[in-house]
């Protein structure tokens, strides 16, 4: 019944000995990696707990009132969870029976699929749609007791109200101070810092998100606390000796994948005449465009059954030149484009986007990456800003007269 989330290493570190002793005395059946207290081991109503065999002193431990209240609360919660879990299991079996599947091997994925099939729902927000999930996934996680039977907190930062969070900041500061001292030592010894350690590669990962940090500390923290955390971390990570603390820093970073690995090229197709081509769609502003690229070609351009003179303004021809120039395929491919809606700027942008995607089919990975780096494979999200009520335009206000 216990939660599977591991206990963070920073949890109650200064009082680790005391905590472990308590764990052994009060909850001998559980191992240490527990975040919620299970109530079936607490003797409700009993004022004292008998000591275990390996404890020499025979003195009974008095339980404070707050501890008692806490235990009752935990017990109530556990009972609730028990019934919820039982309900969940029954519901799952019912669902399996309805779907004609084996209830024992019915997984969570099957449950989701069954609900989507049985209760189709058009609500936009996915959280508003009906669901059946393990109660431990839905109910928020709770922290274990943070104080002794006498009411003394385990954690030395208990009175900051978010000890885990401040403990992280504390760690960062000490590590940074350590690095600074090391740097000073190296400087005094006239050693080269860059030879001592390589700069930390922080490009391949990013800081954990606000929600991830919240889950890590299991405390109520604000957005500004998260920003504080990021600033502190940035300071640590940008230190020239930061790679000495790589292990610590990487706990708070998510790995990023190479963007080039995610590039997909449209397939090369063959038309009735036996010419190989690829096609793609693109959008910009309100415009839409579809581009077919034929290779080999002679550099002909057809836009809406006209040639490049479809754009009388040279600016838009230069726009179309961009991907061709990057790929070096100018004069080697034929382009047939259809553009609809919007104005010339939007249409030129849409054609450029579609063209770059279609060209990907004929170029090497290297050039594909170059296209990406020049921003050709990004859809331009900028749009016309809406007019607001009570003012003349998107930003412009009505002329204001005093009277």
């Amino acid at each position, binding site marked *: 019944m216990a939660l599977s989330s591991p206990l963070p290493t920073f949890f109650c570190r200064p009082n680790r000995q005391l905590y472990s002793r308590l764990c052994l005395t009060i909850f001998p059946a559980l191992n240490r990696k527990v975040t919620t207290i299970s109530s079936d081991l607490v003797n409700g109503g009993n004022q004292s707990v008998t000591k275990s065999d390996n404890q020499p002193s025979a003195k009974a431990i008095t339980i404070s009132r707050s501890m008692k209240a806490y235990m009752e609360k935990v017990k109530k919660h556990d009972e609730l969870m028990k019934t919820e879990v039982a309900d969940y299991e029954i519901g799952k079996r019912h669902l399996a029976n309805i779907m004609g599947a084996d209830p024992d091997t019915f997984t969570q994925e099957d449950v989701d699929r069954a609900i989507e099939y049985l209760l189709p729902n058009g609500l936009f927000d996915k959280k508003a749609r009906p669901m059946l999930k393990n109660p431990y996934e839905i109910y928020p996680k709770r922290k274990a007791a943070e104080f002794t039977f006498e009411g003394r907190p385990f954690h030395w930062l208990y009175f900051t109200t978010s000890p885990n969070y401040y403990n992280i900041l504390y760690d960062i500061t000490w590590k940074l101070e350590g690095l600074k001292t090391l740097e000073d030592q190296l400087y005094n010894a006239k050693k080269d810092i860059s030879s001592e350690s390589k700069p930390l590669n922080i490009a391949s990962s990013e800081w954990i998100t606000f929600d991830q940090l919240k889950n890590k500390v299991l405390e109520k923290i604000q957005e500004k606390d998260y920003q504080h955390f990021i600033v502190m971390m940035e300071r640590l990570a940008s230190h020239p000796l930061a790679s000495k603390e790589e292990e610590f820093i990487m706990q708070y970073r998510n790995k990023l994948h190479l963007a080039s690995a995610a590039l997909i090229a449209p397939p090369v197709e063959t038309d009735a005449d036996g010419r190989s081509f690829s096609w793609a769609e693109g959008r910009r502003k309100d415009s839409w465009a579809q581009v077919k690229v034929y290779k080999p070609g*002679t*550099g002909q351009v057809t836009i809406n059954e006209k*040639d490049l*003179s479809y754009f009388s303004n*040279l600016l838009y021809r230069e726009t179309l*030149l961009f991907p061709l*120039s990057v790929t070096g395929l100018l*004069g080697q491919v034929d382009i047939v484009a259809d553009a609809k809606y919007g104005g010339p700027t939007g249409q030129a942008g849409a054609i450029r986007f579609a063209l770059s995607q279609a060209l990907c089919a004929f170029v090497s990975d290297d050039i594909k990456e170059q296209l990406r780096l020049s921003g050709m494979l990004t859809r331009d999200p900028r749009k016309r800003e809406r007019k607001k009520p009570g003012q003349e335009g998107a930003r412009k206000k009505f002329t204001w007269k005093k009277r």
Partner: protein
Amino acid sequence: MEPVVLRNIVSRTLSFKFKKSPLQGFSKCKARCLSTSAQPQPEKINNVCRTHENDPRNHTLDHVGLYYTIPVEEINGVLKNCVHPWHLRLMNTFNEYGMMVRKPAVELNGYIQNVNLNHPIPRFVLYGRTGAGKASILLHTMQRFHRDGWLILSVPWAGRWVRGWYKEVSESTYKAGRYDLPTDGAEWLAHFKHQNEGKLANLKTTSEYIWTKRENAAVGTPIEEIINFGQTRIKFSSDCVGVILKEIRNQAQTLGLKVLVVVNAVNAFYTQWNQLNALKNSGKKKLHPSEISLIHNFKKMLTPTWTNGVAVCTVEEACNNLNERENYTPLYLLKQEGFEALDPFVPILVPEYTEKEALSTINYYIEHNWIQNAHGRTEEGKKEIIFVSNNNPFKLYQVCTSL
């Protein structure tokens, strides 16, 4: 694709490779002493862009795509008012009056040369996209036949006679319901006199013309006198034009004159101009071109009622109303009326630049330091310029202005 084309250029221009022009040698040192421009490229074979055959009478298809120089006297003489202002300014800056030999020009000159002048006049209509170089071909033809001693009657821009802000329009003294353009008439007389200096001595009137009670021109008055009269009494300038044209028509056969009639934008003679600057009479009624006496007189020159002459016209999109410019073919631009008036004629398409011609122009610009951008002198840059200009000669000039 490209090397093949280049090789063709090479084979065609091989004969010119070894004749080193003084200007080519000059251009090298030009580029070298520029601090910011790129190092001069080694003289390549495909950079050949000029021919030493400066006499248009000797131009053949071998010279197509190459530049030849026109002497200043002809630019200021027979070709005055006929060169586009931008083109003239460019030539002045280059200090060299260079023009390209185009294929339609060579073709047209060949046709005219082989025409049997005893038949009623043949008519040629040049058509093509805006900026394709129709007017430049007229220049080539005019220069060529001026050297052969032909009489040249040219209208540099017929659109000028159907539009104008606050232009003076007066009722015709000769016929009611027709309108004179005194200033335009006088201008054309001066233009005609300038173009045909020294060729008008033999021309004398064959009938008597009475302008007013006191002023008249007796039989045998030299044409030059009539021109002078039209220029001083501009009220009668349109009538003078009519007289001159009539006399030329009548006497071409007898005197053995060879006459070349050149009208740029002939569709202005047949289509109603409806824009704000259209010519209006005193009753604010927009004038139809046939009501204007100048146009009425010139239309007669285009009818096959006389011999010993050739008419060359162009049709321009710019002389049609804004909503009538979808196509550039003579039938569309001349409409029914104009087409019937000119039919049968020889249509000659003026295509946009071929790759060779475009490269030749760019090389010519580079030779004259017009393209300063270092990238514009590379092969890749040249390709990009051609792509953006879409092979259109005027667009090519526009693209190169800011480089």
